């Protein structure tokens, strides 16, 4: 019961912080809301009993990515720049689409109850016995070896690309 209450609270806070990210005018504030949102999402992951994923969420998002972003904001010395919205009609169309898609997707969720019946290779017992890290490692280095390597290549390429792009050119 308490756990359920806590879950509702975490979910509500996640939503609030996320909305704040999207609506705050100040970039730095927005970034701080984003950090909060990431932590809260990690909390939600904990309720799924996926501690490793929650840890990753905190390390990668709240740690690495958000650090990047705040770093960039500081570097760019951004100010709030008010101005006319040019793409008013396009953006209105986008919002209308969002408003249509949101209930439609929720509707689709209601239809998808049947999937809970599926039984995979990772039973709850195994999860509780070994923890998720050994299981995940097992899968990652056997079934998903190729995607895993590809992701590592992608990371390398990303690093090189970022350096090449941001490098000051002598022109």
């Amino acid at each position, binding site marked *: 019961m308490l756990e359920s209450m806590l879950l509702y609270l975490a979910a509500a806070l996640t939503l609030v912080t996320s909305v704040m990210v999207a609506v705050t005018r100040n970039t730095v504030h927005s970034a701080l809301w984003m950090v909060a949102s990431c932590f809260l999402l990690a909390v939600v992951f904990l309720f799924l009993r996926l501690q490793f994923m929650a840890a990753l969420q905190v390390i990668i998002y709240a740690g690495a990515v958000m650090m990047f972003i705040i770093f960039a904001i500081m570097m760019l010395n951004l100010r709030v720049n008010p101005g006319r919205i040019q*793409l008013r009609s396009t953006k209105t*169309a*986008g919002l209308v*689409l969002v408003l249509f898609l949101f209930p439609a997707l929720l509707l689709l969720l209601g239809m998808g109850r049947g999937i809970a019946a599926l039984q995979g290779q990772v039973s709850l017992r195994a999860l509780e016995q070994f923890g998720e890290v050994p299981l995940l490692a097992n899968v990652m280095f056997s079934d998903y070896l190729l995607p895993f390597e590809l992701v590592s290549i992608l990371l390398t390429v990303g690093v090189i690309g970022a350096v090449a792009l941001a490098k000051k050119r002598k022109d």
Partner: protein
Amino acid sequence: MFDLVWLIPTLPALGVLLNGLLGRKIEAANKSLVHWIACSAVGLSFFLTCLTFLELLQLPAELRLVEFTWFNWISAGEFQSYWAYQIDPLSMVMCLFVTGVGFLIHIYSIGYMGHAEGRYYRYFTYLNLFMFSMINLVLANNFLLMFLGWEGVGFCSYLLIGFWFGNIDNARAGKKAFITNRIGDFAFLVGLFLLITHLGKHGVWSVNFTEVFSHASALPPGIVTAVCLLFFIGCTAKSAQIPLYIWLPDAMAGPTPVSALIHAATMVTSGIYFVTRSNILYQMSPLALQVIAVVGALTALLAASIALTQNDIKRVLAYSTVSQLGYMFLGLGVGAFSAGIFHVVTHSFFKALLFLCAGSVMHGLANEQDMRFMGGMRKKMPVTYLTMLIGTLAIVGFPGLAGFFSKDEILWKTFASGHVLLWMIGVFTAGLTAFYMFRLIFMTFFNECRASREVQAKIHESPRTMTVPLIVLAALSAIGGYIGVPHALGGSNRIEHFLEPVMGTGPGKLIAGGEHLAQEAAHGAYHPSLAVEYLLMLLSVAIVLIGIGLAYTLYVKERERPVQLAERFSGLYRLMFNKWYVDELYGLIAVRPLHRASLFLWKGIDVLIIDGVVNGLARIFGWSGTWLRTVQTGYVQAYAVSLLLGVAGLMLYTLFVLVP
């Protein structure tokens, strides 16, 4: 010497390259160099032709056919065509007078075209190009190479008629000549293809004259007649016969030496040359020969009747040319091929002479062409007068001069082959010829000068470069006939003997069809006696004298009479003066409908439908492009929205297609 025959056409071609590519610079540096190059090229060609001719004479008559293969020109499957020349009596006769007369006219042009600043080199380039084409035409040993020359001379004719293209009328005349010739060339090509395909059926994939003629007997008679008639249509265009003669009078828009060279002496005779060359084919088709004879006679008469009333000195000569060409075809049509060639040769002398004389008169009279504004030139231009008189006497067939022998030969052969009606037309035309030629002489050289005072003050005899060719040609016109004095007058008709090896009925060359025809001719034809021949000769001389006398009466003694006569027979006079309205008739039945149809095809089909479809498609894409372009704004977020749109689509698909 036979190995050097390729030099004969190549030398003028070299002249073309030199003057055509560097002419502007050469002319700017040294004007005389231009004509030195051009004239020496043709002169050397003439010299080489003479040498080759002399060497050919060394050979016995039956061996007088030497072929020189330069290189393989076209080779497609079994079909072979070589760039090859043929040296035989006929090609040598043609080549001799083509290069000879051509050389003289080149020299004459130096004086005549001296004032053509800036276009001098161009003129000589064209003239050399013409010589190259014409020599190819007469020396070629196959139909295809001959056709190359045939087209080449037509092209040069077009270039030279429109030489002063600054005046739109000249350009139009050039166009008319070219288009009229294209009609004939089309028929010629169809004939050639017909011949090639039908010979191909017998395994002879060749256009070589000798090979074609030796296999001609294998062809069905209908095909032979069709081929002959199609070829003849080509000849009517090139040699200005009914119905395609209309371009020649207009072709007088070109410079006068051009009229002399191309439109009197050489190019227009290529039709006669071709028919003579293919005499073996023609002898197999009596129908084609009959058509040629009738067309020739009618053309002679029609052109002579038009010439009676024309006032433009060059036009009179042009119609006279058409008329004389008609004579030649009459000769060919009755089977007297060598007589036709004989007349070609003599005609080239005296007609070139007449044109050059006319050019000389015009040169002295500030380019006046209208005979009504001439007169009295006898004293002021004695050389021109004398030479032109000789030329005129030669063309009307005054006894002893060139035209007498050749024209009488044709008329006699016509009569002897039994075509009495055609003979009568010929003799009557001879009278007309005498009348209009002496009308020209009297109007130009006799009486008082009717030119304006300023022009009169400047009248002068032409320079040496012009008079010398005149004198040479006059001498040739006077004595040229003695190469073919008939037996009746104690001669041996040397040219006929010389040409015999070329003829299908000549010794050692008899082929099935030709033999048959010759036998038939020997049996069926009417054989008049020697007395009849003398009588006919006297008759034609008498008619010629009557014509001269009439011209003297009307244009020297009683000069008010022509006007009265024109008024009395105003209908006939108008018909003749307006050339029997043939141009107008063609305009009505051919040119105008064609023009309308073309206009319809252009404005109706091409512009409206074809262009419409293409432009319409382009416009549709243009419109859709302008519309679709607004989608590509270049803003990231606009693309994000379209991405969401795609998500919406997928969602709808899932909700309504996958899930149920």
